[in-house]
């Protein structure tokens, strides 16, 4: 199968043609002409390497009413992703080689993105003893990222052992940083607004204290640490300090923490309930600056589909989490590219190159150059659209961006040379 992309602006550069053949980029140059190739007109479109998500909840197995590997893969492809890491908090939990291989196989069957399972750090996410991390690493799913996401590995001794143990197979522990004793019953960011709304506060210190502890542990044992969904200005400061000391720490920020603030909670509409919670405008600004200067390595969606009944309820009864895959790139455009904080190379770095490196994914996050795997997307940066949850490919509708106009439209996505999205439509 041969595809000729005409006139794309690679990383926002001058228009050029890309020839995709046999899953790879065969040629890049001006006025390429190949008889029999499928031609894709990319006039005015920006070409980026396919996005890599370090943090996706696909809900299968267990909550197929909220999302499946297939529907989540479709949402991912439409968002410009070519690889997603599927979080381990499924039912059953992905804490054995059997479950991670099941998720990996479902991803292959769907064939829309590379679904890379994340393995649980502890058995049943219970934070008591290590899951068989080596077995998951050695399985067909080739797990490298381990996380109890949704729960913090709160026990410091257990966290230390996990950090050490995964060094044997170049793994990384992705920590959901939340000191559980400080967040019992917590519903939203603790501050002026939580005081007024009467919602139990989730203090920034509960995140920052765990990150501070973990970077010291990672330094002590010489291990890799990844911090999930950083949400506070203080966390950015701690990460900046740790990196200046040479600690092997990486971090991600979600699109919603880059765009939305706690003020959304004043509606008591649980579509805005998420863990960690939406924070203040000062936090949002610090997260944008941290992503721009590289203190935060990656944008990760924390795409968290929930069935209607889990959101159409009282705030406290609702499950935390929001959709993200289909709007992630648009939010980065809105919050970083358009204000001039990040250029197209920066977008590729934070949404593809670095997340692929953190997850040790071969074949993703590569330059758009001859001989490289043909994983890429074409984006119309000039398009603007109002988000309609009913039009999303996700099986769930809990988008915090409903009714909001956002810039950018993913026109096409290619996974190893095959179009998963064309003209903004999923190809299967």
């Amino acid at each position: 199968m041969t595809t000729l992309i005409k006139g794309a602006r690679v990383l926002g550069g001058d228009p050029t043609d890309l020839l995709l053949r046999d899953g790879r980029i065969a040629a890049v140059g001006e006025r390429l002409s190949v008889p029999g190739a499928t031609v894709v007109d990319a006039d005015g479109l920006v070409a980026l390497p396919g996005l890599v998500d370090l943090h996706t909840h696909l809900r299968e197995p267990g909550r197929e009413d909220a999302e499946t590997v297939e529907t989540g893969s479709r949402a991912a492809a439409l968002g410009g992703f070519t690889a997603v890491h599927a979080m381990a908090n499924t039912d059953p939990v992905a804490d054995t080689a059997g479950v991670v291989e099941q998720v990996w196989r479902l991803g292959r069957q769907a064939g829309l993105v590379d679904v890379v399972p994340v393995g649980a750090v502890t058995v049943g996410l219970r934070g008591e003893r290590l899951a068989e991390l080596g077995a998951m690493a050695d399985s067909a799913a080739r797990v490298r990222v381990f996380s109890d996401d949704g729960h913090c590995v709160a026990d410091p001794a257990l966290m230390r052992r996990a950090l050490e143990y995964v060094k044997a197979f170049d793994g990384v522990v992705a920590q959901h940083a939340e000191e559980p004793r400080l967040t019992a019953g917590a519903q939203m960011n603790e501050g002026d607004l939580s005081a007024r709304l009467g919602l139990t506060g989730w203090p920034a210190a509960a995140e920052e204290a765990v990150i501070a502890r973990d970077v010291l542990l990672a330094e002590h044992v010489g291990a890799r640490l990844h911090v999930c969904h950083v949400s506070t200005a203080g966390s950015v400061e701690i990460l900046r300090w740790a990196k200046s000391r040479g600690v092997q720490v990486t971090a991600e920020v979600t699109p919603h923490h880059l765009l939305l603030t706690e003020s959304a909670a004043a509606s008591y509409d649980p579509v805005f309930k998420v863990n960690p919670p939406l924070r203040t405008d000062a936090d949002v600004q610090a997260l944008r600056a941290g992503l721009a200067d590289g203190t935060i390595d990656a944008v990760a969606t924390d795409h968290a589909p929930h069935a209607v009944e889990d959101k159409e309820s009282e705030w406290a009864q609702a499950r935390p989490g929001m959709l993200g895959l289909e709007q992630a790139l648009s939010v980065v455009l809105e919050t970083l590219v358009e204000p001039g904080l990040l250029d197209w190379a920066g977008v590729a770095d934070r949404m593809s190159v670095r997340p692929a490196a953190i997850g040790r994914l071969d074949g993703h996050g590569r330059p758009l150059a001859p001989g490289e795997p043909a994983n890429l997307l074409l984006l119309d940066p000039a398009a603007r659209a109002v988000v309609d949850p009913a039009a999303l490919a996700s099986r769930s509708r809990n988008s915090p961006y409903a009714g909001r106009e956002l810039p950018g439209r993913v026109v096409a996505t290619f996974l190893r040379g095959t179009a998963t999205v064309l003209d903004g439509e999923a190809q299967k």
Partner: protein
Amino acid sequence: MKRHLLEAADLDRADATLVLDTAAQIDSALAGREVKKLPTLRGRTVVNLFYEDSTRTRISFELAAKRLSADVINFSAKGSSVSKGESLKDTALTLEAMGSDAIVVRHPSSGAPHRLAGWVRGSVVNAGDGTHEHPTQALLDAYTIRRRLGRLDGVRVAVVGDVLHSRVARSNVWLLSTLGAEVTLVAPPTLLPVGVGSWPVQVSYDLDAVLPKADAVMMLRVQAERMNASFFPSAREYSRRYGLDARRMGVLSDDAIVMHPGPMNRGMEIAADVADSVRSTIVEQVANGVSVRMAVLYLLLGGAPS
């Protein structure tokens, strides 16, 4: 008046004063009558939807609606379809389908009345939501202060106790400051919310320093379960530092009143001889609660059925 009464924070001075004035009119209209009933809401249906046990508030609303000649349905979360897992939304739509004009809701989750108001066409009255607000309690407290002291403007009110978990305190903070009173919150720092600095109040940790300057002292109930979560070391220490006993009552100015939303922990936040003193408005508050709730239902539902 708006369609709903969800929080004291969104009552402006005119609306709040209208409720108090209406309650006063109702009181004088019923004074000395043998049949304490007005025909105003005949044919209208008020549902008391209570997800928490609160016999006092439920009875107060029930009496208020009945004295306005409304039909009243009491829907308790216990022993109903709710215990079988029915959602708040489904319950609300069911009640509305049966023809309810107003839903009076008590719920353990902050914001539940706001959610309800988005789902139903009728009026929603917040009868206490989680640790958020209890606006009719604040209205009856304001009504009680105004009756006893003759005014609200410039009145110095000390609110003492577990502000962190108190919907009564939150509603009083907003309503009393809207009506011109000067509120001082008195509590151990553990029982004040982070963010209290943004409220239109003074904050003190020292009850003895506040009492001589107070025109009204509102004691909040302290829940026993707070003791096990290290908000304070012991009931005895709490009572010594923040309880209102006869000695402390002695430093109050001559006209100062002592209030409590009930139910009281006698001997904990308030001593028996204080609760039963002539300064105490506690029983009066209960009576005023019915009048104020009549005023609220009248203003939200008043007039002919639509």
